């Protein structure tokens, strides 16, 4: 039993699981929230799903040693592209979705190519594309439609796939989020590509010397994160039957906090998809679950700040635990004399 607990503690997601337990306990014990209502509530799950689809690729980029904050502009870019193409020009919804995903691919390629071709940190590059894309989305919207908010109506199948409310409350994007997490989790932890990501985050030059196509991997990751952000935008446009040029900026910090709470090392080389997943849930519960408590909503940011610090400190000590761990008593091979 103790061994099982200890082996969980050495994993990257240990801090996020403890944070989640801590936050839920805090809400139940001091906020007077009922555990049943909290778990069953749709609000934080919907929030987590939208955030989680962006947080997973942001976490992958962080593991590989990069950062992408342009996602903040790509969520409205995705929903506006869908709404303008489908709602304003009356094209089929399939065209709208394809157009939005193309915008994602294009911006992801720009981010990726600039990152591998220049020595500018990806934080700065994606800050530039973030601001630039905000300008593009606003100008294009005003230029093409004369307004900053466009309505659309999606046909039944699109509504079913991307904008459905399951049981009248849970957005269908929750299923997309879980499926995405399972697939990416498999790729990161079970395939060689995952190993390449960890190696790139550990030491890019050595990874390249070991024959890993670091440039192609970096571009693919930036494309993945940009496409994921536009996907969230598409789902929101179809769900709400309209799109606005604003919004999405909160996602930047929310995603980074979720990923860091989830045990991903900011400098790269360490992390897990389970951690990112749990980190996102924890974040969502703090920011949305607070409505189910008697705690004033305005305190939630304070809780997030404290939680972030505590989680990072925990992650650090668990990482050390993992580093200096040596199994005692257990020997997989017989001992040999030190000097043969």
């Amino acid at each position, binding site marked *: 039993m103790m061994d099982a607990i200890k082996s969980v503690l050495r994993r990257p997601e240990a801090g996020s699981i403890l944070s989640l337990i801590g936050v839920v306990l805090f809400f139940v014990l001091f906020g007077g929230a009922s555990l049943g209502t909290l778990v069953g509530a749709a609000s934080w799950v919907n929030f987590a799903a939208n955030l989680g689809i962006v947080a997973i690729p942001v976490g992958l980029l962080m593991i590989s040693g990069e950062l992408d904050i342009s996602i903040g502009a790509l969520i409205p870019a995705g929903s506006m592209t869908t709404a303008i193409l489908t709602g304003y020009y009356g094209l089929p919804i399939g065209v709208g979705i394809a157009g939005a995903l193309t915008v994602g691919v294009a911006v992801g390629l720009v981010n990726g190519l600039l990152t591998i071709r220049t020595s500018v940190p990806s934080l700065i590059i994606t800050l530039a594309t973030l601001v630039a894309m905000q300008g593009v989305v606003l100008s294009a919207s005003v230029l093409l439609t004369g307004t900053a908010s466009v309505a659309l109506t999606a046909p039944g199948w699109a509504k079913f796939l991307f904008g459905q409310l399951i049981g009248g409350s849970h957005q269908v994007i929750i299923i997309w989020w879980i499926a995405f997490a399972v697939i990416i989790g498999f790729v990161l932890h079970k395939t060689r590509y995952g*190993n390449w990501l*960890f190696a790139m985050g550990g030491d890019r030059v*050595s990874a390249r010397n*070991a024959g890993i196509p670091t440039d192609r991997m970096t571009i693919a990751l930036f494309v993945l994160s940009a496409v994921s952000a536009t996907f969230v935008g598409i789902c929101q446009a179809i769900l709400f039957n309209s799109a606005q040029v604003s919004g999405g900026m909160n996602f930047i910090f929310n995603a980074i906090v979720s990923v860091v709470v989830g045990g991903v090392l900011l400098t790269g080389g360490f992390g897990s998809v389970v951690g990112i997943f749990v980190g996102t849930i924890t974040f969502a519960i703090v920011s949305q679950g607070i409505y189910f408590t008697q705690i004033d909503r305005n305190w939630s940011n304070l809780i997030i700040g404290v939680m972030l610090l505590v989680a990072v400190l925990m992650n650090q000590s668990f990482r050390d635990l993992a580093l200096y*761990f040596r199994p005692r008593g257990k020997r997989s091979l017989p001992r040999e004399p030190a000097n043969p």
Partner: protein
Amino acid sequence: MNDKPAILELKSVNKSFGPIDVLHDISLRVRAGEVLCLLGDNGAGKSTLIKTLAGVHKPTSGQILMDGQPVTFTGPSDAQGRGIATVHQFGGTFPLMSIGRSFFVGVEPTKGWGPFKIYDRKRANEIAVKAVRDFGITRIDDGDRLVGGLSGGERQSLAIARAVYFGARVLILDEPTAALGVKQASHVLRIVNESKKRGLAVVFITHQVMHAMTVGDHFAVLIRGAIADDFRKGQRSREEITDLMAGGETMAGLEAQVEGYMAEHEGHPPSFQVLEGSAAP
């Protein structure tokens, strides 16, 4: 021993970066089962020489030969493909990866088929642990341990074992003992010996003369980008080599000065100022 053909040979290699000449007329040869020690102070051109051997830099003029045939490395991976492996000062460079995972970076063993080809953790761990234990590092027994938790010597050993496992014929060790304690350094030296016994050609770069003399068969002293001396085991004493590396008689002179001072001052070593002052002409 001398008549064995050299695996890797440099023939009057020059390297300059723009107007700055870094390597002058370097000629070296490394044979199978032999350790060539490259000695030199900081800034003597050791790293440029290593990078030229490892395919990072192309010589401005001169020739590189492998097994007697002239070769041109297109890049570090080309040199690696031909069996030249470089192990840097801190060995494993992925501190937060497990031993098995870092051992197989880029060439991960997999099992399964199609899109479900998964990384074979068990096999990777077994091979990695066995490879490093074969070099006599028996403290490593769990492939799931993170590389960052190993001692400096163990990391070096892991890196060397990895290079050998993947078919290296020439092992370039860049200051492998520089950051290590006495015991850890002796681990690494033992592994250098073991590599030599297995028939590898080893280029051992160091400025620690004692370590060089423990394992070296052939020595080259590098001063300001040129080979100042080239000799075989037993042809020079430690003092001679140290003096040469430091650029002449300074070391011996300093020692005599300290001894003289101590004799005059009841065994107290001189302060730095005293030495500085008296050293001025």
